[in-house]
């Protein structure tokens, strides 16, 4: 008791300790190993040796800049789509859901009871060449008579959007649900139109949710490879496909590690720029 009293300054560190230990063991340490590997040279057959091989990074960027650009394009499109779809959904549930709120939220998460792979394979059925969706689009002349959706960029972006939608919808819901409806009423009392009240009150107050949702969607989507593998062609493959192939098929650990770091760095820079632009430090702080 007295010892603790005397060392009261320790309390926050003790409280943080489990989290820090976890982070250290399962994030920082593997990251260090990854960094170490990314600077190795050699081959699997003759062994890899550490040699400050910064060329791995240059090689990875020059060879796979197309894959990187495509990953960010697809992830960006999917994030925007998920936002556009999720916002009205979350808004409606938060303000109009009433006693159905929990059930509706459950409905959003329900697909997650099925594994990721199976959900993606299900899209092969939904978008099948002779399926309903393609049939309707052909009848509407949106698709050519022999056009298809599977094995196109559209299918890949659609698959990513679907698979990460809950990561967007749930933070949005949490942010919208916390908004005090009296603030909106007050805005309308002060002669704001409904649109204006939304733009000046609801939207700004929901920005932390938008921020969290876009990050939770964009970051995993940028590294995804399942959707491109199952719904795309080689022309749609993303950086995740390359990393997977380098790591498992070619057993080229340095190249895989360098690519992973490049992806991580690119995302980090993007996130910082994004949070600056949105001014979220103020919003979340």
């Amino acid at each position: 008791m007295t010892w603790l009293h005397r060392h009261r300054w320790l309390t926050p560190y003790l409280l943080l300790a489990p989290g820090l230990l976890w982070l250290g063991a399962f994030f920082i340490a593997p990251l260090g190993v990854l960094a170490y590997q990314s600077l190795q040279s050699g081959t699997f057959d003759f062994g890899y040796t550490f040699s400050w091989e910064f060329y791995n990074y240059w090689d990875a960027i020059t060879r796979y800049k197309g894959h990187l650009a495509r990953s960010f394009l697809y992830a960006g499109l999917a994030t925007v789509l998920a936002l556009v779809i999720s916002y009205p959904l979350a808004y409606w549930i938060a303000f109009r859901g009433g006693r159905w709120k929990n059930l509706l939220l459950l409905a959003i998460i329900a697909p997650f009871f099925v594994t990721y792979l199976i959900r993606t394979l299900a899209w092969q059925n939904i978008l099948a060449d002779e399926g309903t969706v393609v049939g309707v689009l052909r009848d509407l002349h949106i698709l050519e008579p022999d056009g298809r959706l599977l094995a196109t960029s559209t299918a890949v972006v659609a698959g990513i959007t679907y698979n990460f939608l809950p990561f967007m919808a749930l933070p949005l819901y949490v942010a919208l649900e916390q908004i005090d409806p009296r603030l909106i009423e007050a805005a309308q009392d002060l002669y704001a139109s409904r649109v204006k009240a939304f733009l000046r009150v609801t939207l700004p107050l929901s920005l932390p949710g938008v921020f969290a949702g876009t990050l939770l969607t964009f970051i995993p989507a940028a590294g995804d490879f399942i959707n491109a593998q199952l719904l795309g062609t080689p022309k749609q493959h993303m950086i995740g496909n390359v990393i997977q192939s380098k790591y498992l098929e070619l057993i080229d650990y340095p190249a895989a590690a360098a690519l992973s770091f490049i992806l991580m760095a690119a995302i980090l820079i993007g996130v910082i720029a994004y949070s600056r632009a949105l001014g979220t430090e103020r919003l979340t702080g």
Partner: protein
Amino acid sequence: MLSIPGFAAACGGGDGDAGGTTTAGPKELADTLRFSNWPLYIDVDEKTKKRPTLEQFKQKNGVTVRYFEDINDNATYFGKIQRPLSQGQSIDRDIVVLTDNSRFPGLMISREWTEKLDKGAIPNIKNLQDTLRKPSFDPDREFSLPWQSGMTGIATNLNVVKQPVTSVDQLLEDPKLKGKVTLLTEMADSVSLVMLANGDDPTKVDDTAFQKALDRIQRAVNSGQIRQFTGNDYTGPLSRGDLAAAVSWSGDVVQLTADNPKLVWNLADSGGDIWTDNMLIPKGGDAFTASTFMNFVYDPKIAAQIAAYVNYVSPVRGAKAEMQKIDPSLADNPLIFPDDETLSKVVIFDSEALSNQDYLEKWQTLIGA
């Protein structure tokens, strides 16, 4: 731990040819055998959902088999086990199954990550097909025994095209099939198919012939003829009719045609490759128990029972005669018991090319990564 001493003599008929390769000391069967295999690759009783072969093995030898269907892909599985093995740790398996159209069985052996077979416990090794006795990665079969073999050919959905696709020219260049064709992600399977069509020899790959095959596949990718490169996942799109033709493995399609008679499978006119899945004992596994199990599945009766369910090519001589008793129609199926004509059209892909890093990188780039 429960052990059953003296069981060595009781099992497997005891041909008496206990070889000099076995290690000294008392031989005791472990009470469990941990066996990693590919999905749908052993017989299952549809009613009880039990696996008759494993049940019978338990009855005979008192060893419970813990059976894991956790190998979906050679590279992924190897990636999973290579780290503990390289650090000298056990992977808690006594048998794993890897395919010889990848470099991984060879890697496991050359890195000394496998235990030697206890041939004294495998008298039934005499039933191994002659053609499979001397693979280049394990010339004396000291470390590996075939589980099943399969051939690579072309499956066609006759709802989409009238005639079965049997020529690589049509597969890669017929505009009627544009966007409705898949090849396999496995380099050996796809490349040997195209090399044979080019008149080249996949058993001895040289740079020119390899590049020629790659260029031809690349043209078909660029033109949109080839829709995707797949593993087993071509089965759904092919059955639905999204695909007209898919380069695919023999046994898979035998299983599929049972449900969908519009699917047919043929070797390409110019031929294809034959590959073999090999049982290996990873370092730390129980060689004696694993070998006893291998001996059990090399009994022609058991081999026929497995082949009748999985529909792949059995490596066990005498399985065909036993199959006559189970299901004569299967015994006459050339995809399960290939006749001489079929065998004359299949080749084993050059094992050196399998570990040629330059080839592998070019291939991975071609298939999109």
